[in-house]
């Protein structure tokens, strides 16, 4: 096990809080990409609260690790992560999607403290992450670059251009995590535009692949540690997730790619998250 009992408890408690934040943000904004936010939140939680070498008091520290949220639609999850990690006050999140807010539906590195890349146009993030990883190498910096991709995003050809480059330049300081929740706006990935066999494709493009449970902190930690220990080939962490995870009426439901929650639904969502963590925490013994 890569996590201590204390770490595990802390990470789950943090993820629970962030799930509640995502629901609140969606409610304040009147709508957000809540399904993909809930699927990726455990990945972002473990990266920001365990692995990323960053200092919120010095957000532009040159030697910090970088994270590119290539699936920029999950800004509803990303903004609260940065706030809870200490980059800015959680009160600011209430401006989400409002006039002149730094927080829109997609992350903006020019406006949001702690955000390393403006993303949301899908398929761009991994290229930028490859550039950061190569740049770190040129500058002789021991910097890790994490890139979080969506599975639907893997329809974009540029993802594969970037994977080719990551393998070509043996970028072992690049850790690619794919949020494999299986759903896109128009339906299941395999129905809209199939990406399987995804692991084999990644391998064929020169990556080592480790498949993990994207909602299990121990499984995620094992995958990330394998990626961090990469010697010759960069490692992609293929994380199986559930879209809408934690809110029972949203889980695996295509219409919850983007949605809004009124007061009643918000309460229902919060209750569902409480219920999931009660069961989960009993199960993992923390």
């Amino acid at each position, binding site marked *: 096990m890569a996590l201590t009992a204390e770490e595990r408890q802390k990470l789950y408690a943090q993820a629970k809080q962030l799930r509640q934040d995502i629901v609140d943000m969606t409610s304040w904004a009147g709508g957000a990409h809540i399904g993909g936010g809930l699927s990726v939140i455990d990945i972002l939680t473990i990266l920001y609260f365990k692995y990323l070498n960053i200092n919120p008091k010095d957000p532009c520290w040159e030697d910090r690790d970088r994270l590119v949220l290539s699936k920029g639609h999950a800004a509803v999850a990303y903004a609260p992560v940065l706030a809870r990690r200490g980059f800015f006050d959680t009160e600011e999140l209430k401006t989400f999607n409002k006039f002149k807010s730094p927080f829109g539906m997609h992350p903006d590195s020019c406006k949001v403290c702690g955000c390393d890349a403006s993303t949301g146009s899908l398929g761009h993030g991994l*290229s*930028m992450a490859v550039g950061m990883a*190569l740049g770190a190498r040129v*500058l002789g910096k021991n910097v890790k*670059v994490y890139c979080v991709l969506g599975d639907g995003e893997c329809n974009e050809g540029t993802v594969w251009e970037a994977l080719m480059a990551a393998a070509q330049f043996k970028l072992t300081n690049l850790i690619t995590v794919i949020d494999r929740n299986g759903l896109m706006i128009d339906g299941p990935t395999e129905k809209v535009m199939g990406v399987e066999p995804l692991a084999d494709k990644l391998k064929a493009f020169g990556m080592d692949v480790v498949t993990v449970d994207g909602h299990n902190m121990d499984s995620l930690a094992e995958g990330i540690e394998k990626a961090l220990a990469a010697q010759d080939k960069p490692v992609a962490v293929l994380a199986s997730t559930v879209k809408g995870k934690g809110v029972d009426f949203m889980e695996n439901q295509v219409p919850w790619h983007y949605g809004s929650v009124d007061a009643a639904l918000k309460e229902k969502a919060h209750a569902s998250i409480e219920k999931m963590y009660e069961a989960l925490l009993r199960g993992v013994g923390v």
Partner: protein
Amino acid sequence: MSDGTGTTWTCYDAATMSAREIYGRVLAEMGKTDTRIVGLSADLAKSTAIAFFEKGHPDRFFNMGIAEQNMMGVAAGMAKMGLIPFASTFAVFAAMRAAEQVRTDICYQKLPVKIIATHSGISFGAAGTTHHCTEDIAIMRSFANMTVIVPADGTETANAVRACVDIPGPVYMRIGRGFEPPFYENENYGFKIGKAHTVREGSDLAIITCGIGVLQSVEAARTLEEADGLSVRVINMHTIKPIDRDAIMKALTETRRVITVEEHNMLGGLGSAVADVIAESGKGCAFRKIGLPDTYSEVGYPEDLYAHYKLDSNGIVDTIRQVMKIEFEEDEDWEDEV
């Protein structure tokens, strides 16, 4: 200045060095002292001459293969780490294949990526329309934060490459295939990004041009002076964005007849940029644009294509003679106009 000995686009030994070769050599030289500079290419290192940088600094050069969109994203990532990437490919791929990456990854994030796009306009004549690029100025100048430069020749390319490093944001530099005849004899004519260079004074009409148009316009101006007794000003508007409004207004006020010459679609390029300034000024003048008339280009040697689209000195002379026939109400006092 050029000795005006005529066209040499397909004469490989006419110029001592092509614009792109000068670009590559200058960049390699700059890389010796400025270790922030990194080079990127998309399987066109030799064709775009960034191979000179590769040779000098192999550890700071990255060939991204035939993947221009990824190249621009990678350049953005490198710039975010504090490097100054020079990314080179043909103009058609830089400006169109990778347009969204240039806009969103580079310009939107205000990153100091320098895109040096070669084989621009119709300079790759025989390669055909798929390899011509007559839209890039329009595309690139519509991207906020972007500086757009079109050097007149290799000497000006050298000046521009040296100067663009000091610009904190992105730069798009458009250079030809490299067999264009040189115009400037040496580098010391006061090149400054954003400041047009008046290469020839004149009071009857002003030609505002860039790229290959500079040499052709000067030759046209000489012809018109000798044959028609006209005094034609030639302004090298090497920086399309930000455009030198003062130079345009001075020319407009002093000549009241202006034409633009560019190797680009007449929509959205230099001519449109100049027209914007004139229209906003509220001052009237006789105005014409020379460029491709909203069409896809023909195949052929560049000199034949330039003649076909009236971009050569003969075409410019014809247009100017037409413009000189335009009669309009002259008003000594422009101050009362709005």
